[in-house]
């Protein structure tokens, strides 16, 4: 490891900054320092398209003057620059209003003895080898369904980060982590129609990445399957969210449960605590300590212990997701969710294989991707573009495009009639496919 990830140096900076801020008169201080480095290569048509090296770092400080708060960030780690940042945060705090809920987490919540999680699996790969892998992946992808397929680029990237969190309560915890990925993007072309699709793999540990051949074959299969896409008439249909579309379907429920949206009254889950919001066979569990889980973490963004808990238990909303601040706003303790959730696992007593969910559809749509941001967390209104497939009599008939699906999330969550068994571990939300009984489809 180079000076870039020199942990002693980064700790020294954090200590100096906290000390300097306290001597200046700050009542409480929090510092976040991170540094990372990595490499990414992109290949196009068996030529190098780009080779990038990144090496970044950042220092952030939040200063409290009583209940007033100011913050600053810099990527210049010279002592002068760190002092300038501390001074700026201090000055800004003097102009902020007294906020009765602001401040560091309570001392007993801080993760002074965090659970040890192994999250660091650096990949000792040279640029030459990375280029070779990406080339092999693209070459294999281009060798199948030859006249119909062209490349939209294949690539590999590898990154490692050290992140350090410290505050004036004496809390200081740092950890290394790594992430690696490979992707292959293709275009299928036939009779003037072009369709792009891609496949990717990502993992903390490079030995967990999918093989280049598998990525190439999946990307190829997906691109070919999109050819002949068309609109369907406007109608109501059952909707089956799969893969990434299924994970992002749950993302809105998690967003609406975040304490910040609750105290701002900007959530369709307001006043829904302890209410049944999903069919009773479904539970959503936060599991922060999963081995190699992408969202795994022993403490949250402010150093508070994360904890395994039910977000939804048998359809019932068990808790909102609280940081120290939003918790104080609502008069309840933090749940260790400053910054978000740490692996949400969707469980159901009635899971079915994806093939059975499709096989059981009389008519319906499979949604592989959604387009746009047409979702309101305030009231749950949902309207998005989609791509996917039309199903009739349990069989995929043809790919669809240029259509929208619309409804309200509160109804959509109640109208879940099936959950797939196959879970995708690439996301912070581990879910199978999700089948919704009925949504409005707009098309021709």
């Amino acid at each position, binding site marked *: 490891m180079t000076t870039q990830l020199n942990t002693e140096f980064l700790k020294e900076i954090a200590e100096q900054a906290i000390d300097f801020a306290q001597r200046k008169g700050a009542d409480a201080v929090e510092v976040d320092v991170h540094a990372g480095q990595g490499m990414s290569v992109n290949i196009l048509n068996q030529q190098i398209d780009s080779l990038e090296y990144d090496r970044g770092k950042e220092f952030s400080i939040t200063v409290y003057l009583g209940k007033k708060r100011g913050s*600053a960030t810099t990527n210049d780690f010279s002592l002068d620059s760190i002092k300038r940042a501390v001074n700026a945060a201090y000055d800004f705090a003097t102009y902020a209003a007294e906020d009765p809920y602001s401040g560091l987490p309570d001392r007993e919540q801080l993760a002074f003895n965090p659970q040890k999680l192994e999250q660091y699996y650096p990949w000792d790969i040279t640029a030459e080898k990375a280029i070779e892998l990406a080339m092999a992946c693209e070459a294999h992808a281009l060798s199948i369904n030859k006249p119909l397929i062209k490349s939209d680029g294949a690539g590999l990237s590898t990154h490692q980060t050290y992140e350090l969190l410290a505050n004036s309560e004496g809390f200081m915890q740092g950890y290394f982590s790594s992430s690696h990925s490979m992707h292959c993007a293709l275009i299928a072309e036939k009779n003037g129609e072009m369709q792009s699709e891609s496949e990717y793999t990502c993992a903390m540990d490079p030995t967990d990445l999918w093989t280049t051949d598998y990525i190439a074959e999946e990307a190829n299969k997906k691109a070919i399957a999109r050819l002949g896409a068309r609109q369907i008439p406007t109608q109501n249909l059952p909707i089956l969210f799969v893969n990434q579309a299924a994970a992002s379907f749950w993302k809105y429920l998690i967003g609406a449960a975040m304490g910040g949206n609750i105290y701002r009254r900007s959530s369709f889950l307001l006043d829904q605590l302890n209410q049944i919001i999903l069919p009773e066979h479904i539970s959503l569990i936060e599991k922060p300590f999963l081995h190699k889980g992408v969202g795994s973490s022993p403490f949250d963004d402010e150093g508070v212990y994360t904890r395994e808990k039910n977000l939804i238990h048998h359809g019932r909303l068990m808790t909102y997701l609280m940081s120290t601040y939003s918790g104080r706003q609502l008069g309840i303790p933090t749940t260790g969710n400053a910054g978000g959730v740490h692996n949400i696992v969707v469980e159901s007593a009635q899971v079915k294989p994806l093939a059975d969910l499709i096989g059981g559809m009389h008519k319906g749509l499979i949604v592989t991707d959604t387009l746009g941001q047409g979702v309101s967390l305030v009231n749950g209104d949902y309207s998005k573009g989609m791509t996917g497939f039309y199903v009739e009599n349990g069989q995929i008939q043809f790919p669809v495009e240029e259509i929208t699906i619309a409804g309200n999330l509160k109804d959509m969550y109640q109208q879940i009639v099936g959950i797939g068994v196959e879970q995708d571990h690439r996301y912070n939300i581990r879910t199978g496919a999700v089948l919704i009984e009925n949504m409005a489809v707009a098309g021709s």
Partner: protein
Amino acid sequence: MSQEIIHRVTDSLLTSSGLSLQDIDRVFSKIMCSNVDYADLYFQSVYHESWYLEEGIVKEGSYAYDQGVGIRVVSGEKTGYAYSDDLVLPALEDAAIAARSINRLGNATQAIKAWNRGSTPIMYSHNNPLDSMTSQQKVDLLNKADQLARAASPKVTQVMASLSSSYEQVLIFNHDGSCHADIRPLVRFNIQVLAEFGDKREGGSCGGGLRGDYAHFSDVLIQEFVNKAVKQALTNLEAIPAPAGLMPVVLGSGWPGVLLHEAIGHGLEGDFIRKKTSAFTDKLGQRVASDKCTIVDDATLLNRRGSVAIDDEGTVGQNTMLIENGILRGFMQDKLNARLMGVAATGNGRRESYAHIPMPRMTNTYMLPGDDDPADIIKSVKKGIYAVNFGGGEVDITSGKFVFSASEAYLIEDGKVTAPIKGATLIGNGPDVLTKVTMVGNDLQLDPGVGVCGKDGQSVPVGVGQPTLKVSEMVVGGTQL
């Protein structure tokens, strides 16, 4: 045109870090050899601040400083890139060696003899906007906006407002011995309100900004932003479910120009054209829109959010004709794609920061005005929708399918604007949606200065604009069949 900028930025970015032009020469000497087609060093520093109000109080102010240098080496179609956020010679040399590693070393070429300083057109102020108001004035401005919003309606229960600015300096050294500099201020105000009535809750938001300073935010302008945000929330409280299906759509002037950005803008970026992944590939000189449509990408508008005096490769910002009376006339190019396609760069080479490779990006993309009276456009629609405000959009440049989501829209029935409808996503096909533009208003407006465009994970500020226009049919993603 000014050469003063380059001296000022050189002092601020190089001299103050203890770097000299000889050091720049040394870095280039590590890079240049016979098989390098292009190389540049991009120095950048950004000072940024933001102030945030909610629940009637300014809760936090934050300050940020970011600096670094990106080193790019291009050989044929290959780009090698590395950056450093330490502005010291050894770090620059390391980055140079990493960036040039795409190349087997050829013969060393001649060293740069003397730096030729380029001039920068004056298109916006070069003062630091962070200093254009005192901290107390910034806090007061946000408090004022909060009071105005709460006074506007008793239904307003939450107000969130923010004020931010940045001061960016860039200095670019090209391997051909030219060097360029720019100073780019940017300010932004935004207000978001929540309105409640019974058990209904709806949000509304509005904002704006430009390349300039906080003096832009006059009392009148703040009042206007507040009124629009509150009106949007209150209107949506009354909204009925949106219709679903294919129907005529009238788009309001200004920010609804996000249609152009998504439907055709991205598809006309030179990288997608060169790689033949855009639905517009090979369509130059062909009809891609009705003859009422003339669309430009114009970086030269004074003080605009999307404007650039020079782009991030040192090319002077331009006004580029994209579509003229419906015929596709041009693409947006950076240096790499222009060179490989044998055309001229158009000043569209932009990047989020020194940590990113430049790409062809839009600046201010808008449609020129037509002849129609906006009132006549509404009158011409028997049953359709009138959409005046939008959230974001997204496009698949290969299939051409794009969406954008209305945040304030109304039904048109028998030529009259009637009930407000709930937000709905509109979806269309880029290469043919503009052929369905049957009326274009005489009321061109640019957006108030809010656009952020994302591409390959890089965000840059952009502008859009258009007159009121009618698309004869488009899919409206409502719930009412």
